[in-house]
C-alpha cells in the first residue's frame, strides 16, 4: 500500500504529462475554429490538428544537403524540453512530484533551452529566412523572459516559494482577495504569453510566406516527423501558458487530493478554463492587427513595466502590512 502511495503521485504526474500531449492539438483546433467563426467562415474540424500531425508523422522527412546533425537533433530536443516544462505546470491536480523537480525558474529555463535549439536549427541551413527568424525570436524572448520571471516572482514572493504547486496552494488558501500586484502580474503574463507563443500582434501563426514571420521562418526547412514535432511543441507551449495563467491566477477547481471525483472535477474545470482563454485569444486576434516587428519591443517593455510595478507594489505595499 505504501508502495502504491509513493508511486501514485508519479503516476498521476505521468498521466498529466500525457494529457498535455493529447490536449495540445485540441486547443489549437478549437482556437482555429473560433477564429474562423468570428471571421464568418466555417473553419476546419476540431480534429484537424490531430489529422495534420498524423499525416506529418507518416511522411518522409526531407533534410537539406547543407544541414548538420544539429538540424536533425533539434526537433527532439525542442519537443522534449517543452514537454518537460509543461509537465511541471499543474494541470488537473496540484502537489505533483514534478513541481518539486523543477520550479518556475527551471520552467523558464527549459523553455529557453527549447528556444535556443529552435533558433540554432533555424540558422543551420544557412538561408536568410532562418537567420532572420532566429534573430527576431531571440530578441522577442529576450525581452519577454524577464517580464515573465518578474510576473511569476510577484506570486512567488507572496507564496514565499518558487514552487508552482506551493504558489497555487497559497493562492487557494488566501481565498478570493483582490491584490493590485496580481492584476499587474496577470497583465504582464498575458502579454508575455502572446509574444512567446507567437500570436497576433507579435507574430502570425497562420502565415507561411511573409517577410514578417518569426516562428515559421525558423521551421521553414522542416518536413515530415521533424515538422510534426516542432508543430506539436508549439501547441504544447500554448497549452502550457494557458494552464499557467489559468491555474496560477484562478486556481479554483483544481484537484487538491487524488480522489477520483476531485480529479474529474479538476479535469473538467481546466478544460473549460482553457477553452474560455482560447475564446478570449481568438477575439483579440480577430480584433487586433499584426504589429510591425519594431513595435513589439514597446509591447514587451510594457509587459516588463507591468510586472515590475506588480512586484514593487507587492514588496512595498503588501509585505509590510
Amino acid at each position, binding site marked *: 500500500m505504501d508502495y502504491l502511495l509513493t508511486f501514485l503521485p508519479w503516476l498521476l504526474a505521468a498521466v498529466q504529462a500525457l494529457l498535455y500531449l493529447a490536449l495540445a492539438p485540441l486547443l489549437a483546433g478549437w482556437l482555429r475554429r473560433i477564429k474562423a467563426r468570428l471571421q464568418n467562415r466555417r473553419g476546419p474540424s476540431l480534429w484537424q490538428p490531430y489529422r495534420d500531425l498524423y499525416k506529418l*508523422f*507518416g511522411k518522409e*522527412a*526531407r*533534410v*537539406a*544537403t*547543407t544541414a*548538420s*546533425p*544539429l538540424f536533425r537533433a533539434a526537433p*527532439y530536443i525542442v519537443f*522534449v524540453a517543452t*514537454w*518537460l516544462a509543461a*509537465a511541471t505546470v499543474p494541470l488537473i491536480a496540484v502537489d505533483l512530484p514534478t513541481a518539486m*523537480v*523543477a*520550479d518556475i*525558474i*527551471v520552467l523558464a*529555463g527549459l523553455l*529557453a*533551452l527549447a528556444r*535556443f535549439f529552435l533558433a*540554432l536549427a*533555424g*540558422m*543551420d541551413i*544557412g*538561408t*536568410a529566412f*532562418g*537567420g*532572420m527568424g*532566429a*534573430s527576431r525570436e*531571440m530578441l522577442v524572448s*529576450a*525581452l*519577454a523572459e*524577464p517580464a515573465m520571471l518578474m510576473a511569476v*516572482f510577484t506570486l512567488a*514572493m507572496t507564496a*514565499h*516559494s*518558487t*514552487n508552482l504547486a*506551493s504558489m497555487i496552494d497559497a493562492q487557494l488558501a488566501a481565498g478570493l482577495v483582490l491584490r493590485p500586484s496580481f492584476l499587474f502580474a496577470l497583465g504582464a503574463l498575458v502579454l508575455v504569453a502572446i509574444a512567446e507563443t507567437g500570436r497576433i500582434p507579435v507574430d502570425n501563426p497562420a502565415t507561411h510566406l511573409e517577410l514578417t514571420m518569426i516562428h515559421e521562418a525558423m521551421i*521553414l*526547412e522542416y518536413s*515530415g*516527423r521533424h515538422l510534426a*514535432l516542432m508543430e506539436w511543441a508549439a501547441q504544447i507551449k500554448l497549452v502550457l501558458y494557458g494552464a499557467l495563467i489559468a491555474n496560477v491566477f484562478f486556481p479554483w477547481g483544481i484537484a487538491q487530493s487524488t480522489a477520483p471525483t476531485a480529479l474529474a472535477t479538476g479535469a473538467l474545470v481546466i478544460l473549460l478554463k482553457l477553452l474560455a482563454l482560447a475564446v478570449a485569444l481568438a477575439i483579440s486576434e480577430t480584433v487586433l492587427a499584426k504589429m510591425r516587428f*519594431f513595435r513589439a519591443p514597446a509591447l514587451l517593455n510594457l509587459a516588463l513595466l507591468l510586472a*515590475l510595478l506588480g512586484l*514593487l507594489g507587492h*514588496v*512595498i505595499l503588501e*509585505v509590510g502590512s
Partner: protein
Amino acid sequence: MDQALSFALLAVGLALASSLVSCFAARFPCLLRLVALPVFALAGLAALVAGVVALWDGGTATMTLPLGLPWLPWQLHLDALAGFFLAIIGIVGAAAGIFAPAYVRGIERSSESLPMLGGFTGLFLSGMLLVVLAGDAFLFMVAWELMSLSSYFLVAFHHEHAANRRAAFLYLLMAHIGGLSILLGYGVLASFGGGFAFTAMRAAELTPGWASVAFALAFVGFGMKAGLVPLHAWLPEAHPVAPSHISALMSGVMLKVAVYGFIRFVFDLTGEIQWQWGVAVLAIGSLSALMGVLYALMQHDLKRLLAYSSVENLGIIFIGLGLSLLYLGTGHRLLGALALVAALYHSLNHALFKGLLFLGAGAILHSAHERDLEHMGGLLRRMPWTGLLFLIGCLSIAALPPFNGFVSEWLTFQASLQAWQLDSGVLRALIPIVAATLALTGALAALCFVKVYGIAFLGQARTRHVRRARPVPSSMRAGQAVLAVGCVLLGVLPTAVVALLSVIPEQILGHGLPQATAHGWLWLTPVAPETGSYSAPLVVALLAAMAVAAAWLWRRGVVRRVRRGDPWDCGFAMPSSRMQYTATAFAQPVRRVFGLLFRIDESVETDNKGVLRHRLAVHDRAWTLLYLPIARLVDAGVRRIVRLQSGNVRIYLGWTLATLLVLLWIIS
C-alpha cells in the same frame, strides 16, 4: 589540511619549474612543448587536488616562509575560501596546459620569443596561486604584482601589431592604478590592525567611516581587475590579443583572483559589514552584467565578444556578492551565506565555461586562422568535436538547464527572492529591480550565444580558408573536453558542489547552508524544500525518459528514411553562403532597441565609382564618458608640471631639498 598546503606548494614549485625550463626554449624549442607545458598542467592538477582537499577538510593551515623582509616574513594561509579558488586556478590551468602544446607547435618554427611565452605563463600561474595562498598583505601585493606584470608580457606577446602594444600598455596602466588602490586599502586595515598579517587585520576594530574608506578602495582596486563597468574598458582590449590559452587563463581565472581578493578583503578582513556597501556593489554589478552582455552582442570578433561576456559574468558574480553584503549588513546571515555561495558557484562556472569557450576560439584560430565571426560558418561539420564542446560551453554560459550556468543563476534568483525578509521598503524594492536586470541579462546572453554558435558553427562557410578548416589535434580537444565535462558535472550534480561550498561561509561568516543539502543528493533546497527546490539529476532523467518514450512512439510504423535535397527557403533561388544572416545583422534588432546605450557611427557613402558602402562602428561609451576626460585632465595637469623641467640640475636639487624639508616638517 597540511597535505593540502603541501600540494599547493608543490603546485607553485611546478609552475616555477615550468617557467625555469622555458628559459632554455630558445636553444631547444621543443622543450617548451614537451617539458614545460606538461609540467604546467601538472601544476594545475596539483592546485586542483590541493583545493579539493582543503574544501573537503574544512580546516585551515598556515606556514611561515623564510622569505620576505627580516621583520616581516611571508606567511601562507590556506582555508576553504583559498582552497576553492586554488581549485578554480588548478582546473583551468590544467586544461590550458593540455591545450597549449598544439598551439606552441604551430608557432615553434616562426616565433623567437618562446622562452618569453613559457616563462611568463609559469610565473603568471605561480603569481595567481600565491595571491590566493598569501597570509599577509605584503606577500599578497607582491604576488598580485607578479600576476599583473607577467600577464602584461603575455598580452604583449604578439607585439608586432601596434594595437596589441597599445592594449598591453593600457592593461599595465589600469593594473597599476588598481594595485595602488588595493595597497591603500590594505594600508587602512594595517594601520588599525597594527600589522600586515591577515590575522592582525581581522582582529582590528575599524571605525565605520574608515571601514567604508577601506571598502571603497578595495572595491575600486579589485573591481578594476575584475573588469566591472565603468572601469572595464581595458579588458576587451587586453584579453583577446593574448594567445588563446592565456586568454582562457586571464578571463577564466585571473578575474576570479580579483573576486577572491574582494571576498577576502571585504567579507573576511574588514569586520563589521555595512548594508550600504551591498547597495553599491549591487548597482555596479547590475550595470556590468547588462552593459557587458549588450556590448558583447555588438562584437563580431569572437575573442573580443568573449571578453565582453566576461564583464557580464563578473557582473553576475558581483550581484551575488552585493546581495550577500546587503543581507549580512541587515543581519540575515543565512541569506548572506546563500548569496555568497551563489556568487562562488558562478565564479567556478564562469571559469569553466569561459575557459572552454576561449580554448574553442583558440581551436578555430588554429585550424581556420580566423577570429572574425563574419568570415566563419559551417564549422560544426568541419570540426565536429570542437563544435560539440563549444555547444556545451554556449549552453552553459546561456544559463540553460541542465548545465552549470543555470544552477548559479538559479541560486542567485533564490537569494534575491528572499528580499521580503528585509525590513526596509526601499531595499525590498531595489532587489527585484536587480533580479529583473539579471533576468534580462540571462536572456540577452542566450541571444548572444545563439549568434556566436549559429554564425560560427552552423550555416555555410563564408570564406575559403574556413571551408578548408581541419579538426584540431587531439590534445587541443582534450583540453576543451576537461572543461566541458566539468560544465556538465557541475550542472547535473549541484547538491554535492553546494555541500562542499557551504564550508566557506561557515568559516568566514560563521553560518553555512544547513538546509541546502539536507534532503539527499537529488534535491537542492537552498532555504527550505517548500521555498524552492531543483533536482538537476531528475530533470536530466526525465528529459532522457521522455526522449526515449518519444523515440519509441514515433519509430513504430513511421517512415524512418530521411531524404536529402536542396534547401526549400520558400522556393527562392538556391541560397549561397553570402545570402546568410551575418553576425551584425543578427544583432541589429538589439542595436536598434538598446540604441541609446551605445555610441553608434553609421553612415552610407558613395565612392567615386558610384558604389554604395555601409559603414558601421559601435563604440564603448565608457571611453567618451570616463576614460578620455580623465586622460585629458591628466594631460592638462602634466602640462603644468612640465614647466618645472628646466634641464638645470641645481634647480632639481633645490626641489628635492625642499620636498625633504616639507616631509620632515610633516613627520615631526
